[in-house]
């Protein structure tokens, strides 16, 4: 199972619609970094509206991919985290403090525009 990565101008858009197992998550991490490299994207939105479980492993993979992309020079915003997922993550003890987030895809794109000054 591979997660599709769409290119829109200088941005990459990802909507995660499948139940994330560990292998899919790791594969996605690799795929995204190579897509950033290939397309020279400056911004990435990962939409999590359809994701109803984020456990500590998936959270680590997502947090890592944000840091990794940052190292490469691309800004990542996570969007659409469900109320139940947000509550569960904090109770689990995962704060994802340095991860930029936005309510939905639209606001995520606005955030990228502002931060990248485009």
């Amino acid at each position, binding site marked *: 199972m591979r997660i599709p990565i769409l290119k829109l101008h200088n941005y990459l858009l990802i909507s995660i619609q499948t139940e994330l197992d560990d292998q899919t998550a790791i594969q996605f991490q690799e795929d995204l970094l190579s897509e950033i490299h290939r397309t020279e994207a400056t911004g990435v939105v990962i939409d999590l509206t359809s994701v109803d479980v984020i456990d500590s492993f998936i959270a680590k993979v997502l947090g890592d991919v944000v840091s990794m992309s940052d190292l490469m020079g691309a800004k990542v915003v996570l969007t659409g985290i469900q109320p139940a997922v947000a509550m569960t993550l904090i109770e689990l*003890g995962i704060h994802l403090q340095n991860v930029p987030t936005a309510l939905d895809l639209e606001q995520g794109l606005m955030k990228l525009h502002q931060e990248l000054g485009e």
Partner: protein
Amino acid sequence: MGSQSYVTIMKEWDIVAARQMGRDIAKNLGFGTVDQARITTAISELARNIHLYAGEGKVCFEIVESLEHKGIRVLATDNGPGIRDLSQVMEDGFTTSGGLGAGLPGVKRLMDDFDIESEVGKGTKITTTKWVR
């Protein structure tokens, strides 16, 4: 005591199978979406621990009913290496696998009742329950 079902954890995908089964049971029991997410996440952590540290084990689900309330009991058992220092694994941020170390103390916070038994060289048994509010 009610019906029981289980998922054998042998490969990574079984973690997903365990949490899907747990979510279905929780949904049918009448848990709300937040509690469903809590239960599913807890199952995911327990199943992953089995996969990571014991290699093989079982996650069992039991519907428990008392006079006042009903709930879901999750039993995660393995015959792995066991845990030498139980107080250490219940500390936030402790990890031997390079993870976030959120696993067991996190599960305890997400669920209502939590019990862990472990014997070095024999295995680990974690019993945790969530009650429908």
